[in-house]
Structures are given as C-alpha cells and as structure tokens.
C-alpha cells in the first residue's frame, strides 16, 4: 500500500536551530491523522516541509511516492493545506476567493464549494475580513477541500476557534473525509479535540517523532501498571516503560507492551490517549533525545517503514 505521506530521516534547520530532526514517519492513505506536540515541537515545520513550502535540510518527503519539492506541478493539485490562523485575502469577497480557487486549480469543484458555503450560511458577497474567525477558518477549509486534494494538511486549525466553531469545523472536515477517500493530517497541541475525528496518531516533541501509529492499536498496547516497586525490573525486560512514578512501596508505570502481559503482581489499567501522549511528551523532558524514539521504534509496534 502506498503511503499518502512519508518522511525519511527528515531534518530542517533554521540557522543553528534544528526545528526538526531525524523525523521518520508514514501516514497511510485514507487515514485521518493527528499530529500532536507542544508548541515549538516542529509541527508547523513538518507540515510545511510535507507540502513543499520548505525544503528539507536533510532527508526526504514523499507525497504519494513523489517529492513535492522536486515535482511541484504533480504534487500541488493533490495537496490541500490550511495554514495556521487560516490566512485569506481579507479584502476579497467570499465569491472572489472561490473564483481564485477555480482559476488556480484544475481539479476545482465549484459545486462543492458553493454548496458548503450555503450550508454554512456564509454570504458570498461578504468580504472575508469582515467575517468571524470561525467563518474564516471554514472558508479556508472549504477552499482546501474544493481543490479536491488527496492529502489535506491542517496546521492548528482549531487553535483560534471557540468550542462551537471547533465542532462545526470538525464536522465539515468529517463530512468531506467520508464523502471522498481523503487522507488528512491535523496538528494540535492538545489531543482532546482530535480524538473523535482521528484514527492515527503522531506525537512530535523537541523536533523528534516520539510515537506514530494507529490510535486503536496504540490504546490497546499501552497499559498503566500499579504494583510493587521491586518488580519494575521484570517488566522492563520485555516491555517498554514510558513513564514511571514511585511512592515508598509501589510504582505506577505506563508501559507499551511488546507481547502478552503476564504480571500477576501488577494491577493493570486502561489508559486514555491523552495520558499516553502526555507520557511520551514527559519522557522527552527526562531522557536524552537520542535514546527514546529510535530505540523504541526498533522493537515496538510503532515501527514505521
């Protein structure tokens, strides 16, 4: 199966600062992926590099098997991108923006664009700058969707929206992904928003990929173990400990299981996606960057080829 998006040891440096380092991941076609990480983790850089806005310092990006930087005329019609804060030409009317989309895109679906605007109740003759932030975000999304892309990337699309606008935005997005076989990657610094719509998770922290994989499998593989402190060693022999906290007599571990878990002395609990993400982000702070992502990728289910 061909991956919609694939990066191989992708690195991007601005001057002396590495915004992204050794980032290897794949987003299979048809998935709705969540790209999660704290502010400054490199999410925007990863997205911009993926759509060819930035050239990688090292490594490769492939969109459906082709480099968006080397073959922009092939890649651009297949890519949709909603940048942070959903930039629009503020003095254009909504109709003007749709005309822009029609004039610049061979695959443009004018019917879809107009139908969505109508459904959202956005008047076509209004200037984009006069509309609310939520409506501007919706317009940016519709512009990207009406391009009929195969891969849609959205950079923090929900950050500036109120809860109601968030829900409507996600609904528009979900409708579109159901209608056509669209692959989506959304970035956010919080997972909560995305959990309902996404089925794939990529955790990025301190310019490194910490975790990448199917959300269901990730949830099944991660467990919280509470048990005697002296038994931690035994667990660590077969499973990967992501997070540990100790009290005097007992330890609480968040582990990724690498096979069947037989730990009679441990109390095994399910964990939420948010806890998993936080554990991976917390791990980054306490360990050296080189020890975590690569080493784990070798033996875990999150191996990305």
């Amino acid at each position: 199966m061909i991956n919609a998006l694939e990066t191989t040891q992708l690195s991007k440096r601005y001057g002396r600062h590495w915004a992204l380092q050794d980032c290897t991941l794949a987003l299979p076609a048809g998935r709705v992926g969540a790209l999660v990480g704290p502010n400054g983790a490199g999410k925007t850089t990863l997205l911009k590099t993926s759509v060819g806005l930035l050239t990688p310092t090292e490594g490769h990006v492939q969109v459906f098997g082709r480099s968006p930087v080397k073959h922009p005329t092939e890649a651009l019609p297949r890519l949709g991108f909603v940048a942070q804060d959903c930039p629009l030409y503020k003095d254009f009317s909504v109709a003007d923006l749709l005309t822009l989309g029609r004039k610049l895109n061979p695959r443009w679906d004018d019917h879809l664009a107009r139908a969505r605007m109508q459904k959202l109740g956005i008047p076509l003759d209004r200037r984009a700058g006069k509309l609310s932030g939520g409506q501007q975000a919706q317009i940016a999304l519709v512009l990207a969707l009406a391009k009929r892309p195969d891969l849609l990337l959205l950079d923090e699309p929900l950050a500036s929206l109120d809860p109601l606008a968030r829900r409507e935005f996600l609904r528009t997005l979900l409708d579109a992904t159901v209608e056509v076989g669209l692959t989506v990657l959304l970035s956010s610094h919080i997972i909560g928003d995305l959990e309902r719509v996404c089925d794939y998770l990529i955790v990025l922290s301190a310019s490194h990929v910490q975790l990448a994989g199917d959300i269901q499998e990730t949830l099944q593989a991660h467990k919280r173990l509470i048990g005697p402190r002296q038994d931690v060693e035994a667990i660590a022999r077969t499973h990967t400990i992501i997070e540990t906290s100790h009290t005097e007599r007992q330890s609480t571990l968040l582990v990724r299981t690498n096979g069947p878990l037989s730990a009679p002395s441990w109390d095994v609990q399910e964990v939420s996606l948010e806890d998993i993400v936080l554990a991976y982000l917390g791990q980054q702070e306490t360990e050296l960057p080189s020890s975590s992502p690569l080493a784990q990728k070798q033996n875990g289910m999150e191996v990305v080829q």
Partner: protein
Amino acid sequence: MIWVTWRQNRTESFFILGLLALGGIFLLLTGLSMTNTFQQSGLSACLTRPNPLTNCGGLGGAFLDHYGSLVNYIGVAVLILPVLLGALVGAPLVAREFEQHTHLLVWLQSITRTRWLIMKLALVLGMGLLVGGALMALLIWWYSPFAQLSGSFNQLAFDFSGPVLIASTILALALGIFVGTLTRRTVFAIFLTIAVLVAIRLPVEIGLRPNYQPQITVTWSFAQGDKPPVTLKAGDWNVGQGFIDAQGNKTNDVHVSGPQETLAQSLQADGYRGYYLSYQPADRFWTFQWIETSIYLIISLLALGATVLLVRRRMV
C-alpha cells in the same frame, strides 16, 4: 493568475489610473493651449525658418516666461511618479503576501510559486511599460514647443523625452518588488524603496549622465571677452561653464585677492587663465538616452533575478 493579480491590486490600479487620467487631462489642456500660442504668435513659423533670429525677436523669451514654470512642475512630477509606482505597487506586491501569510494560501494552489511570481511580475511590469510609454508619448508631444526652442537635452527634459522614462518606471517597480520580497514588511519596504531609488537615480543623473561621453570643452582667454567663441545650438546641453585656474583646472569657485576694475582683470592678476564652456552636442541625445535606459534596465533585471531566487529558495 491574471484575474487574481488584478483583483489584488484593483484599488491601487484605480488610484494610479485616476491620477494618470487627471495628469493626462492637465497635460492635454495645457499642451493644446501652448501649441496654440506657439502657432499664433508666429514663434513656430520663425523657428522653422532656415536662419532664425536669436529668440525670434523676443517671442521665444515671452513664451518661456509664460510657460517655463510648467516645465519645472512637470519635470518634478515625472521624477516622482515612478517612485510612487515603485513604493505603492512594487513594494507591497510580495511583501503584503508574506506579511498577511497569504503566500501560504496561494502557494498551495495548483500553480508553482515560480509561475505565480512570474505572472505577477509580468503583469505589473507590463502595466509599468504601458504607463511609462503612454506618458512618454504624451510628454514628448506636450514638450514639443520647448523642444524646438531650447531642445530636450537638459537635466529636466531628458527624464521624459525618451525611453529613460519607461526604464525609470520599470526600475522603480523592480526595486520595489525586490525590496518588498527581501524585507517582507510592507511599510518598511515602501520607505526603503524610496531611499534606494533616490540612492540610485541621484548619482546616475547628476554624476554619470553628463559624462556618458567625454564633454566637449571650449576654453578662451580673458582678452576674448566673456562671450564664448562658439554658439551652442538649441539642442546642445550646456553642462557647465566657469573659469580656468592657474593649474589649468575648471572651476566655478573663484577667490579674488586684489581690487581690480573688472572680475576678469582680478582673476587674470591672480593667475587664472581664462573661461571655459563644457557641453554635450545635440546629436548625442539618443546615445545618452539608450545608455541611461540600459543602466536602469540592467539594475532592474538584477533586482528581478534576485527576487525570483528569493522566492524559489523556499525560505518561508
């Protein structure tokens, strides 16, 4: 992309077209009035005679007195207009996209950013070419009475009597676009564009222009009187006149030590050798026009090439 560029620059375009229309009407009205006076007073007929009297018996002087100040205003306006175009159309062209992050929208449509830039450049520079060309044609017609009286080869009329006007318009736009792309900030780019244009055009016009070809210099002694032994034709450009000092150098800055009856005697007593007059003959006019046009166009090409490189390097 044609439509998009037009839509983005609609307001500025209307503003500039309005300004040009007003200027055009003003030129047309004053031009017609001047042509009329020029014909009615007999000045035109006098100048076409094989050996016209000096100033056609006062007619020329009267005409210049009446309309001369207009030429000064127009000359200044013609210097300012390209700067205005460069600052208001050129500088924001790319800078505003970066500033409002709309490049992130438009670069992800189905055209490459290089094509996007080339289309933008072609349209804006094409407009500059048309505006400059139309203005040049109008001004050559408008200035024609003066051209017959005193020629177009002088510091003021040179700017609008040939392709230099088109080239300076292109230069202003190209530099504006480059500065805007480099700085990514509209307001800063507008002011920097004005500064850069002044820093390029001032030295070219004052320092280089009189010297595209070696000036012809006539010298004569104090004994021959202060009238030059040659008479400049109407189309010759009088670049400068003054005195020859003891070392044989041209100077306008003279210091007289002893009291003598006339300035010439005082200077002679102090070792000055005589008078000089430097000029560029009328038949060099087009050579000079093309030299200056080339200078401006080469700088424009460099600026545009650098702009394309900046955009292609994907430093977003």
